[in-house]
Structures are given as C-alpha cells and as structure tokens.
C-alpha cells in the first residue's frame, strides 16, 4: 500500500528534477594552442556559461585522448595556434569542438550548446568592434563519427540483460526451494551452504556466457559496433559483472521469505535503479548529489562505464582498473553476505 502511494511521488521527483538530459555544468577540456587574448576571452566566455565547466587544460593530443578515454570529460574545445592572429587579420577563425560521441545524444546536445556560446561571443565582438567577425566551429564526433545510437545502447543493454537474467533468476532460486519444501530435505544432507549457493550460480553463469556472446556477435556483425579494445578484457569484465549480479540475486534469495518478495525487490530495487542511475539513459553528471551518491552503489553504473571505455573507446585495464576493483569488491561483499545469510535451519 505504502509502495503504491509512494511510487508516483518518488518517480515524479526523480524524473522531474534529477533525470534530465539538459546540459548543466558539463566538464570539458580546453586545449589552447594559441594563448592569445582572443583565445583567453573565448575560453572565459565558455567558462562563464552555466552549461560548461572547464575541468582540464590539456597541451597535447595524447593528453586529450587520455582524458576522453577516462571519461572525465564529454567535450573538448581546441583553439588553433593562429586563433588570435587569424581573427585579427582575416576577421575569421575556426575552433574545433571534439565531443565524446559514444553517447550520441549527449554529444549532439553539447556541441549544439557550445556552438551557440561561440556564436554569442561572435555576435558580441562584432558589435563591440564594429567589424564582421566569423568564428567557425568545426565539430568532430569522437569514437562514433556517424552518431549511431547503437554505440550507446549496446553497453546499456549488456548491463541490463546480464543484471536481469542473473539477479532476477537467481533471486527466486533458493527461496523457491524453501517454498516448495525441497530445501527441507536438502538441509538434512551433508551439502554445505557454499556448495548449495555455488550450485545455484553455475547454470545462470553459463546462461550469461551465452548471452554475452550473442549480444557481442550481434553488435559487431549486425549493428556494426566494433569492439575497439581487447575482447579478452571485455569478456573478463562481463564475467565479473555476471558474478556480481549472480551473488546479488543469491543474497536476495537467502534473505527474503517468498518468491514474490524476491521478484519485487529485484524488479523495483534493481531494475529501476539500473535503468535510471547507471548513466545509460540519463547522464549521471546532471543528477543532484543524493542521486549521484546512490548511483555509486549501482553495479551496472561501473560495468556500463567499463563496456563503453573498452568496447567503444578502446581503453585498456589501465583505464578501467578503478571500476574493476569496485565490482570485485561488490562481488566479495555480496557473496560473503549471501553465504552468511543462508539459513542452515528452517526457522
């Protein structure tokens, strides 16, 4: 009853305030090759807008690639060496906007906003100096030049499918045996909790291996989403995430009283946060602090980051070690609690 009444309130608040696709204080990098007054004032203009926040000043191509791969920034503004002098001599200059197009929607929005800020700047200096200035933004979509949606949803779907299959299916396994009574005999046997729990996890793990393979095959050969990074790393990370989801499902199953509760918890307590807070549908940066904090405990958020980095951006373990470590920690935690919560008696 409480849930029925509380759900719409929570959803309205979350969707209305927290989950927006608007651009707001997005972290960008600046590579100022010119360093002249015109460049400085354009950068100041960007910084002043409430849309962008300059997170990083880079000074080389490699550095730029690195910050993109780490996923710290979503866009970079590159001012060519001759920016100021071009503007002064020819009244005409160009800047480069490089956007992380692994999420094409966000990339489009960001470059649109940035072009608008640059346009405003151009109009203002034209009026101030009474000369027709033109600043032409050249847009480059990194990782996904054709802006294909598949680049974004393949990692998201992988996170969701694995979580669904693994968590929801395992969440009912142990509690179902309690409901049907088979657990009663199983307990009066030498089978230890660890063995029972492992035996429940193995079939779903194998099922997930098949799922991972088919998703990857489909995305490469049907959707034309290439695997830029190491396939082995991608598979390894996927197996890790599968195990995290499995142990989470088993943890639920050892702690609830009925299959219904298990399904409800995995649906409302896991599926919704995964869809909304993993960064797949709504950028995490735009969320208010409480939701960003909650998103940190959503395993799919870390996995989604890993898949995007490895598959789309071609990053290696050096880039995703933090996410990998977090998932490993979650796995150990869920597994330990699941085994300890396993009831060795009926009541």
């Amino acid at each position, binding site marked *: 009853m409480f849930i029925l009444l509380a759900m719409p309130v929570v959803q309205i608040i979350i969707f209305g305030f927290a989950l927006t696709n608007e651009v707001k204080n997005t972290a960008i990098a600046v590579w100022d090759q010119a360093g002249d007054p015109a460049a400085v004032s354009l950068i100041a203009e960007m910084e002043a807008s409430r849309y962008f926040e300059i997170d990083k000043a880079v000074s080389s191509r490699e550095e730029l690639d690195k910050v993109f791969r780490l996923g710290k920034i979503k866009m970079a503004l590159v001012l060519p060496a001759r920016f100021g002098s071009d503007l002064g001599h020819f009244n005409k200059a160009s800047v480069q906007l490089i956007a992380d197009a692994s999420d094409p929607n966000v990339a489009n929005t960001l470059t649109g906003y940035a072009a608008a800020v640059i346009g405003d700047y151009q109009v203002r200096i034209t009026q101030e100096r009474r000369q027709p200035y033109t600043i032409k933004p050249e847009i480059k979509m990194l990782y996904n030049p054709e802006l294909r949606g598949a680049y974004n949803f393949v990692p998201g779907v992988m996170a969701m499918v694995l979580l669904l299959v693994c968590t929801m299916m395992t969440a009912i396994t142990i509690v179902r045996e309690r409901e049907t009574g088979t657990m009663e005999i199983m*307990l009066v046997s030498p089978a230890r909790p660890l063995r029972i729990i492992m035996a429940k996890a193995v079939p779903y793990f194998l099922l997930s291996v098949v799922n991972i393979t088919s998703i990857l095959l489909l995305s490469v050969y049907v959707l034309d989403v290439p695997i830029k990074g190491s396939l082995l790393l991608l598979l390894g990370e996927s197996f890790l995430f599968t195990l995290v989801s499995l142990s989470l499902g088993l943890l639920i199953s050892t702690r609830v009283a009925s299959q219904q509760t298990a399904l409800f918890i995995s649906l409302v307590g896991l599926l919704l946060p995964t869809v909304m807070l993993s960064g797949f549908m709504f950028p995490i940066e735009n969320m208010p602090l409480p939701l960003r904090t909650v998103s940190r405990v959503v395993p799919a958020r870390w996995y989604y980051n890993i898949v995007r980095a490895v598959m789309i951006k071609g990053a290696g373990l050096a880039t995703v070690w933090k996410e990998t470590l977090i998932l490993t920690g979650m796995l150990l935690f869920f597994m330990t609690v699941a085994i300890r919560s396993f009831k060795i008696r009926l009541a």
Partner: protein
Amino acid sequence: MGNGGVKLKRKMYAVSVNNIAKSYGAKKNVTPALHGISFDVKPGELFGLIGPDGAGKTTLFRILTTLLLPDKGTASVDGFDVVNAYKSIRRRVGYMPGRFSLYQDLTVKENLDFFATIFNTSIEKNYDLVKDIYAQIEPFSNRMAGKLSGGMKQKLALSCALIHRPSVLFLDEPTTGVDAVSRKEFWEMLKRLKAEGITILVSTPYMDEAGMCDRVALIQSGRLLEMDTPSAIIRDFSKKLLALKGPDMLTLLQAIRSHKDVADAYPFGEFHHVVLEQDDESGLLGYLQDNGIAFEAKMAVPDIEDCFIQLMKEER
C-alpha cells in the same frame, strides 16, 4: 541426571529426547508446540509417534533432524547432539518430510541420482537397500516426479531418503493421503528396513497403524500421553468394552451417551464402541430396550485405537 549419565544414554540409544520444549511465535502470541517431551529409541527399533494433526509430531521430527532448534531440553540422534553436532546428524539420517518434497520437475531417476550425489554416494553403491522399493517405480524412471501417483511418490521419497544408507530414518506421516493397499505395502517395506538394522521413527495420525510398531508414543497437544509396546498398551485397558449396532445408528449413539453407566461411546467401524464405568452392562441394555431402540450387542476386545481414545479423553 549428571553429564556422564547423559553421555551414556546417548551411546545406548539411537534417539534420545530429554525434556524438549518448543513454541512458535513472538512474545505476545506464543503458540506452544511441545511441552517438555522425553523418550528414547533403541537402535534398530521401529518407533511410532501417534497423534492427531497439530499434536507436535512434525515439530519434534524437525528438531530431531536439526531443522529447528528446541527452546528447552536436549536431544541426540546416533549419539550426536541435535544442536551442536548437527552436521554429523545430517550426514547419517534419512528424512522424509510430511509434504512431498522432491523435485517435481525432475524424473524419478534424476531425483534418486540427485540425492545420491549430494550424499556423496551413488545409486549402484546402495542399490540393494532400496531395490525392493525402487523396483516398483523403476518402470516409471523417466516420468516426472510431480506426475506420479500418491503411492509412487511416497516410494520414491523413501528411496531418496534411503539412498545413502542412513542409520536412523525419520518418516513424517508417510502414509497420509495414501490408499489403503499402498499403506499396507509401505509398512511391509518398513519391516524389511528394520531387518537391515535401520532405526525407524515414524509418525502417523492413523491409530490403526500403531500395531505395526515395536513401540509407540501417543502424543497430543505437545504432550506425551503414553509410551509402550502396542500389546502392553492394550493390556492396560481396564474397562469393559461393548460393541453395539442397530438400524438407526445415530439415535442409538445418542441414547447410549445419555446413560449414566457409559464412560464413553464412539462410532467404530460398523459398530459403536461403548466403554462402561462398571463391569455390568445390563443396566444400559435394559435402558435401551425400555426406550424401544433396536440393537444387537456383543463384547468387544479393545484394540490400540480404543486405548488411545481413552487416553486422549482422560488427558482432556
């Protein structure tokens, strides 16, 4: 009894229950299930726990199979404490719960295989023990367990409980919901298992099955009313028992119950059994004749069911 005494007792008996009590529910809403029950079962004995539904039989079995913790008292199975040494007990007992608890979506063969595996043994190793029972369901070995008839389900469950050659077998109401022929067969199987040296504890609500046990305990509302061999219990029945029948059984029963000489009267097969307060039945028979109720009467030999009905009545 001192600690040494308890240890000695544990060694002597296959099952030893000392003052076991158990209640369900929290603080305000406590439902007592067992009020300090004690009994011992000798190795190789076929011990029956007889009592109506809700008497506490299942609770007691679950405590002995280490599935529940007792609130008070101690119990041991095969010398192992049910609380501390639960792992040892779980390795050596066979348990058949009252509810059919095998995997319904596995076949007969798969179920047996499964339970053999979790007990780290194989069907082949202990096939001789289950052969008699399993042979009867073997023709259906590829059928789903959920699609078996009641009697076959029960045979499969017993096979699964035996596949690791347990030293003590706990059967919780194994014959409930099973037809009369299968019930008889089932008791024959238990006798053969007893001959193999397996201690068997069986609970049942059917009093007529008590006669098949070496010793029986009558349990009601969590209390042990009587415990002895079936013949000793019958011997203890001291009152005179009559069997009466007539064309109008209901009127007859009401008339019998209204007479002062009658201690108890209850339908019993095609007769009414009447327990008299005194040895002389002429008062009752004359009273029935005076009231114009047709009947025929004969002396009845009490059986175990009569004894239990009296014991349960006295307890109330």
